[in-house]
């Protein structure tokens, strides 16, 4: 018992030392040459206060919360030989206010081994990040931001790190993968083959069979005209393990292509596309679920090189019954309870997830795959709530990116016009219009000063409409404003400020989905007249590119015209210290 206490005390001391950033660990420790120790130390202390109209009558909710954590992710990487690598991340975490065992946890966050066999065959077993295409295995960014202000990124990066989200569409999984390449002669200069097999769920021996995801791709590459890739992924239940009568199968097979049409000093024109089909069915013999559908996407990408102008014009068609667990599992699960102020008011009503929650609450996020489409909030995104693989959409999209030669201004624009392929509750079809503009203005480059002075702007407008008789009509307009400023007052000392505002007015029907993507009902007309505003200001000191300290204040206001008495305000002050070593 005494030994355990001493061990915990030593761990805590080590954590505190690292968190305080006294020095880099590698400088203190004698480490074998083939053993590397890196990691992350983080301290977060935050105070959150609830106010606003609802607080005038709410006598049951604590108005003031304070919490935080001290955390050390110790990454131990060993290379026993030049072709083998083993890595683990050991996490030590202590809740703010917990001491010597109370509130403390020790866990393995990551564990894998990888290497090369015969200089050509790469393998990886254990935890890994996997990505294929946006229609097969992909994690799209469900966060609600459009060129988010720097001040909001600290919290978002924290969530992304906790949820293994790298921003590149990878999904955290566990299993094994291999890949290798071949030189193939005249037609194809290169053939790349990869495959993986992962387990995403174990059986409980009662109702849930073990679930696996396997897949692979074969890429045929030609240096002159591009590449074509065959992709296959299958999510399936092993009914024999545990003796189950029913399991699912969700194979998705696609062909993607990238064809270089033109490429010279002035411009490049490429065609990128993907098409394929999915099936979803159950193995049980009575009343089995069985659907399949196709999708196709194609886009021309024009790069006017001297002008730093890229234009993409494309077409997308995703069938109503297209279902791909690996691509459509949202990383935001709105059904999850919030970790703070989950219920407010004397009636203890569940508080609706807001832009503040999406930026603060890691509990809303998950990297787990789901065999039912997770619920979505049309205010946050109605055009493609499940990313590019959102089923029942057909339309065109246009992306434009432009940057001045010195990158003083970087502009982006995105427009999308989509329509349902099959109606929901009616033969009338919804149409979706999405327009998004972003801009980064690096004022310091104009002024010719070294210290950063940057303004970033983003605005998104989304419109959903449907005609028909009165019951069928739908009209929902949502807009999102993201704006921020980053001013480096002194060397590495930044003043940060930002605003994020969501307004949503109108109505829609949100389907209640059961069994994969089957619409069971429409609980009622969803009427909104909402306004959510989050403003923030603070300071950041960058000790190095690996170490930062943020001290920020944030205020969030939520008001709903349809429920004015439940308007509320949340004030938050937090200190976040992050050290990557």
């Amino acid at each position, binding site marked *: 018992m005494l030994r355990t206490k001493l061990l915990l005390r030593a761990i805590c001391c080590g954590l505190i030392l690292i968190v305080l950033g006294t020095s880099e660990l590698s400088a203190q420790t004698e480490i074998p040459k083939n053993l590397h120790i890196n990691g992350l130390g983080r301290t977060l202390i935050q105070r959150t206060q609830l106010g606003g109209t609802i607080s005038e009558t709410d006598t049951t909710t604590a108005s003031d919360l304070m919490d935080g954590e001290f955390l050390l992710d110790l990454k131990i990487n060993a290379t026993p030989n030049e072709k083998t690598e083993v890595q683990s991340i050991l996490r030590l975490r202590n809740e703010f206010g917990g001491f010597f065992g109370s509130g403390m946890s020790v866990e393995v966050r990551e564990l894998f081994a990888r290497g090369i066999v015969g200089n050509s065959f790469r393998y990886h077993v254990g935890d890994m990040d996997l990505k294929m295409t946006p229609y097969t295995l992909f994690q799209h960014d469900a966060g609600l931001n459009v060129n988010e202000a720097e001040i909001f990124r600290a919290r978002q990066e924290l969530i992304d790190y906790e949820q293994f989200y790298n921003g590149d569409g990878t999904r955290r999984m566990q299993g094994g993968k291999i890949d290798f390449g071949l030189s193939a002669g005249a037609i194809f200069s290169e053939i790349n083959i990869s495959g993986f097999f992962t387990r995403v769920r174990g059986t409980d021996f009662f109702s849930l069979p073990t679930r696996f995801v396997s897949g692979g791709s074969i890429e045929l590459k030609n240096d002159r005209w591009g590449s074509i890739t065959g992709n296959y992924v299958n999510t399936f239940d092993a009914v024999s393990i545990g003796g189950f009568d029913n399991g699912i199968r969700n194979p998705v097979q696609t062909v993607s292509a990238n*064809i270089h049409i033109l490429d010279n000093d002035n411009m490049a024109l490429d065609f990128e596309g993907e098409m394929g089909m999915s099936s979803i069915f159950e193995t049980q013999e009575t009343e089995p679920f069985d659907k399949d559908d196709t999708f196709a996407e194609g886009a021309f990408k024009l790069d006017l090189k001297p002008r730093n102008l890229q234009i993409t014009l494309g077409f997308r068609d995703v069938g109503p019954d297209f279902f791909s667990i690996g691509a459509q599992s949202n990383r935001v699960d709105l059904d999850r309870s919030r970790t703070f102020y989950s219920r407010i008011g004397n009636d203890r009503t569940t508080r609706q997830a807001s832009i503040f929650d999406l930026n603060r609450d890691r509990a809303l996020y998950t990297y787990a795959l789901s065999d039912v489409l997770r619920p979505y909030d049309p205010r946050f995104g109605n055009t493609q709530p499940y990313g590019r693989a959102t089923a029942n959409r*057909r339309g065109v999209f246009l992306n434009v990116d432009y940057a001045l030669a010195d990158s003083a201004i970087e502009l982006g624009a995105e427009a999308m016009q989509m329509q349902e392929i099959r*109606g929901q509750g009616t033969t009338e079809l919804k149409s979706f219009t999405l327009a998004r503009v972003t801009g980064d203005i690096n004022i310091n480059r104009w002024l010719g000063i070294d210290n950063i002075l940057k303004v970033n702007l983003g605005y998104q407008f989304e419109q959903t409409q449907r005609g028909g008789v009165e019951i069928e009509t739908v009209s929902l307009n949502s807009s999102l404003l993201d704006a921020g400023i980053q001013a480096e007052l002194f060397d590495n000392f930044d003043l940060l400020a930002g605003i994020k505002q969501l307004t949503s007015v109108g109505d829609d029907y949100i389907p209640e989905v059961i069994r994969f993507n089957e619409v069971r009902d*429409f609980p009622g007309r969803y009427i909104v007249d909402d306004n959510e505003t989050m403003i923030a200001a603070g300071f950041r000191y960058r000790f190095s590119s690996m170490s930062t300290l943020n001290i920020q204040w944030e205020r969030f206001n939520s008001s709903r015209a349809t429920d004015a008495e439940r308007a509320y305000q949340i004030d938050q002050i937090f200190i976040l210290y992050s050290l990557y070593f």
Partner: protein
Amino acid sequence: MKKYLSLLLFISVVITACQHQTDPFDGPNLIDRFGEFQLTTDIAASRNSVDFSADEQVFFTAGFSKNINWVLRITGKESGAVKIIEGFDRELNQENATWNGTTSDLPLFRDEECLVELIIPEEDSLTTSVDITVTGERIYEGSLITNFEEDLGDGLFFGNFEFELTGATGRTNAIPAGQGEYCYFFEGTDNVVGNFFVGLIQIFPSVNGETYFSMPTTIPEESHFNFFLYGDGTPHTIAVIQFFTDTNGDGTFTDGVDKSFQLEGDFPVTHTGWKVFSHTMADIGISEAELSQLTAVQVLLISNMSAQPNPPNPVRFGIDYMTFTQDQPLSL
């Protein structure tokens, strides 16, 4: 050239991939789900009178402004029989609202006036109605032992051996019959000889002018015995039904000689009103040869003395429409 061909090929396939199943729509119809309801056409019957015994049918029509759950309740004004037809539609028509004389809740319909009510439960049970007349009740398939509509005469033996049956016992129309106007009613108290037994009747094939009871099939697994039992909800009544086969081959029922069969567990009568019971003859362990020579059906009133208070309460039940069907139980 090759890459342009590849591009063309890819785009062609992409276009091909844009064919989807677009009909019907996903989920429930929004108009049905949230639209305002109106009765656009009131209920009407395709005919004012119907003779089910002549294979006639009647259907009902009505129209609504949207698809909605509806209930058609047909009630016999004399028998109290009830037929329920339900649906989720925008209109009532020959497809979804046809009545062929069957019943949902016993008793069976007679030749009588019937009230036909159209009920919309979701609209505060909005009800509209029409009357029709049944001039010929439905004829059910099967071989009827008896429905007690006629006096069974020598075809029925009444066994009140312990004098425990009351005067209410007998063929009667004092209670609404399960079919027609008459049924057989037992009532008594096991207070003379405390042996569970109260009284019995025996029914012989002679009620139909036969030596052995005729039936659609003598294969026990395919032969279903059906009957209606009436109860008043009291807890101590048990009905026992026994079948006797002509063991000595004399063509008549010989008590103490002819072998008897009965369903294990018998029939506790705890329900209220009429209820249909069915079992196959294989369930009582009878062979095909034995089934082809049934000489008697015996119905006994038993008092469940194990559960009776002291002194015991009276026990009673009614029985009606005893019939054999082939391949399946009697379908009401």
